[in-house]
C-alpha cells in the first residue's frame, strides 16, 4: 500500500489529539448524558406501561387471530372467495368515502393554507422577531392541543348541526399540526440561498418565496397529503355532527363485529391511502425535479 500522508511524530500528534479531545469532550458529555437520560426515561416508561415481554412472545400467535376473523365471511369462507358478498355495501361505502374525501379535502386545504401562512413566523431561522415567533408557536400549539371534538362541539352550538362544524374543527387542528411540521422543515433548510437573495436587497417575503419555498415545498406536500390521509381516517370522531363518513362506518362495523365488513372497508381505505401516497410521490418528484448534480 502506498502512503500518501506521512504520520506526524508522536509528540506533535499527542498535542493535537489532546486539543481535539478537549474540544469535543463537552459535546460528547452532553450527548452521553442526553442518551443516558433518554434510556432512563424509557426504562421508567416501560415500567409504567407494564411492559411484559413474556406475554408478548407467549401469545404472539394471537396476533393474526383478529385478521383471521375479519377475513372470514359469515358463512365461514375466506372473503376473497366471494367478492359480491364481501363488498356487498360498496355502493354505500364509496359514497361515504367520497363524502369523507371531500370533508377532509376542504378541512385540510383550509388548514394547510393557514399553516403555510403562519409557519415562517414560527420557524427559528426565518421568523422576523422572537416575540412573533413565541406568539405564533403558542397559537399553533393551542390549535392542535384542543381536541377536534371540542371544537366540533363548540361549532355545532355556534353554527348548527352539519358537516361545517366538523370541517372547521378539522381545519383548525390541521393548522396547528401542519404549522409546526412545516416550520420544522423550514428550520432544516439550507440558508445559503437565503443569504444569496437577501444580499440583493430582497424583502423577507421574497426571501421566503424564492430561497426557502423551493427547498421546502416538497416537504410541505408530503406533510399536507399525510394530514389529508389522517383526516380521512379520523373524521370518524366527527360522526355526531354528521361528518363521520367512512371512518364512522368502519367503527360501527368494528364495534358490531361485522367482520367481513371491517376488512372490506379497510381495503377501501387502504386503497385510498395507496392512491394518496402515490400522488405524494408523483408531486414530490415534480417538485424536486431531477436529482441535483454534484
Amino acid at each position, binding site marked *: 500500500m502506498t502512503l500518501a500522508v506521512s504520520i506526524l511524530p508522536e509528540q506533535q500528534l499527542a498535542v493535537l489529539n489532546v486539543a481535539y479531545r478537549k474540544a469535543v469532550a463537552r459535546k460528547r458529555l452532553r450527548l452521553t448524558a442526553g442518551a443516558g437520560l433518554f434510556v432512563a426515561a424509557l426504562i421508567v416508561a416501560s415500567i409504567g406501561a407494564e411492559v411484559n415481554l413474556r406475554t408478548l412472545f407467549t401469545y404472539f400467535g394471537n396476533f393474526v387471530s383478529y385478521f383471521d376473523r375479519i377475513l372470514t365471511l359469515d358463512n365461514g369462507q375466506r372473503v376473497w372467495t366471494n367478492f359480491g358478498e364481501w363488498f356487498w355495501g360498496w355502493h354505500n361505502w364509496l359514497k361515504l368515502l367520497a363524502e369523507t374525501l371531500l*370533508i377532509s379535502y376542504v378541512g385540510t386545504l383550509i388548514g394547510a393554507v393557514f399553516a403555510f401562512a403562519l409557519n415562517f413566523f414560527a420557524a427559528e431561522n426565518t421568523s422576523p422577531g422572537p416575540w412573533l415567533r413565541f406568539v405564533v408557536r403558542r397559537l399553533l*400549539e393551542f390549535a*392542535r392541543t384542543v*381536541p377536534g371534538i*371540542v371544537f366540533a362541539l363548540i361549532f355545532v352550538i355556534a353554527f348548527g348541526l352539519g358537516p361545517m362544524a366538523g370541517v372547521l374543527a378539522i381545519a383548525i387542528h390541521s393548522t396547528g399540526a401542519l404549522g409546526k*411540521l412545516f416550520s420544522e422543515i423550514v428550520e432544516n433548510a439550507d440558508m445559503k440561498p437565503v443569504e444569496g437573495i437577501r444580499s440583493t436587497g430582497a424583502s423577507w417575503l421574497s426571501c421566503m418565496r424564492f430561497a426557502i419555498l423551493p427547498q421546502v415545498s416538497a416537504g410541505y406536500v408530503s406533510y399536507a397529503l*399525510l394530514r389529508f390521509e389522517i383526516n380521512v381516517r379520523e373524521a370518524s370522531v366527527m360522526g355526531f355532527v354528521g361528518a363521520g363518513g367512512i371512518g364512522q362506518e368502519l367503527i360501527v362495523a368494528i364495534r358490531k363485529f361485522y367482520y367481513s365488513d371491517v376488512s372490506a372497508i379497510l381495503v377501501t*381505505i*387502504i386503497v385510498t391511502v395507496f392512491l394518496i*401516497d402515490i400522488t405524494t410521490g408523483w408531486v414530490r418528484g415534480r417538485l424536486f425535479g431531477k436529482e441535483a448534480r454534484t
Partner: protein
Amino acid sequence: MSKPPEVDAAQMRARYPDVFERPAAARLATPAMIVAAFAIFIYGLVDLDFSPSRLFNGLSQLGWISMMMIPPDPGSSLPLYLKAMGETLSIALLGTTLAALFALPVSLFAARNVVPSKLLRFPVRRLLDSIRGVDTLIWALVWINVVGLGPFAGVLAIAVSDFGAFGKLFSEAIEGADQKQVEGIRASGGSALHEIRFGLLPQVLPVIAGQVLYFIESNTRSATIIGIVGAGGIGLQLAEQIRVLEWQKVSFLILMILVAVAAIDFISGKLRFAIIGRRAVA
C-alpha cells in the same frame, strides 16, 4: 452616479424567444392546477353546507361558550390528572420510540435515493400504506388479543400505527437530503451503510427528531388508543369531561396538556438546534 444603460429588450426578445414567450402549456399548467384545486374546494364548501351568514352568526356565539371554560378548574381531581398525564407520557414515549426504531431501517428501503429500484420500493411503501390505513382501533384490538387490556397493548398499538407514518415521513425526509454529502462518502469507498450513517443521518436527524417528538406530543394529546385499551390516560379523562360537558375541567385539562406540549416543543427545538448547529458561513 451614472447607471449602466438600459438593454434593448426587443433585441433580446428576438434572440431568445423561448425565454420571453414560454409555451402556453407551460405557462398555464400551474394556474390551471390552482384553479382546479380551488374549484373542488368551492364545490366542497357548497356541498358541505357552508354559508357565510351561518359562519358570521355563529361567530358571535363562540364567545359565550368560551366563557363557560373560564376559569379553568380541576375540581378535586388534580392528582388523578397528574397521574394520568404521567401514564400517558410514558405510553406515548415508549410507543413512539419503538415505532421510530423500527421505522428508520425500513424507511431506507422506501427512499428513492437509497433504493433506486422501484420494484423494491413499491412493496415497502404499500406495506407502510397498509399499516397506516388500518385504523388505530383495530391495532388496539389486535394487541389486546395478544397481551390483554392494559397500557402495554397501548404501547404496541401506538408503535405499529406510528411505524406506518414514520416509515413514510422518514423516507421522504431522506429523499430531500443533499446528495453531495452522500457522494463525498461514496467516493471514498464507503458502503451503503456508511453513506447512510455519515452522509444521510447527520442531515436528516433533525427532521426525524422533530417528527418523533411531534408524534410523542400527538400521542399524548390523543385519547383514542390509550383509552380503548383500558390504560386510562389524560386523553380518556379529557374525553370524559367533554362527554359530560364539564367545560371548566375541560379547559383545565387542555391547559395542562398545553403545558406538556409546549415543554415537548421546547425540547424539540433545543434538540434539533443542537444537531443543526449554528448556521454555516457562506
